């Protein structure tokens, strides 16, 4: 089972990529740990997380094909 992670704004610069796939991950907390391991700098930034375009907080179960997005503070306008 695979999920897709998108990085936006400054976080894409920090991660060095706008997109990364993760396999064998069932919980949001596990995914966050793996992302922090891959990109240790990311924990120094403010961000929220969206699951399939909805901002979420706390634990979530993940399923194959889910789209997770790391969103820095918005800057529209």
């Amino acid at each position: 089972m695979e999920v897709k992670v998108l990085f936006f704004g400054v976080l894409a610069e920090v991660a060095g990529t706008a997109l990364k796939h993760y396999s064998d991950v069932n919980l949001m907390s596990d995914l966050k740990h793996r992302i922090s391991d891959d990109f240790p700098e990311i924990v120094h930034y403010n961000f929220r997380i969206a699951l399939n375009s909805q901002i979420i907080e706390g634990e979530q179960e993940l399923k194959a094909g889910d789209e997770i997005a790391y969103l820095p503070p918005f800057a529209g306008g």
Partner: protein
Amino acid sequence: MDINYLIEGPVTSGIIASYLEKMSADRNAGGHSFFLGQVRADAKDGKTVLAIEYSAYESMVKAVADKIIETVLSEFEDLKSVIIIHSTGIVKAGEVSLAVMVSAGHRHQAITACAKTVELIKERLPVWKKEIFDDNSHIWRDNQ
């Protein structure tokens, strides 16, 4: 009205004029209020902003902008239409990167609803901006 929220590059005067024509076609509208956000040539530390590069989470922009319009339409009963257009990609200083265009039966709700829509966009629309300076350096800006 068929609305595409994001466009590549600046919101041109031609785009704005074409929406005004469509909005004016509603003969029950008595006022249109427009907010046009423009890229400012801010000076910082001896450098000047040449342009902003905007990026967006497109699928979420659609969902959020739909919800903003629904919220505003439900709050102001005199509204006829609410249009949101935001740039992606490069927008130079002096060019428009955001257009909010609101039609209503009367001026008061048009003006108030336009202002509210702009505030909701600033707060909720998943868009990011990178200011590009005249020495090729850049910084990421946010609305906080």
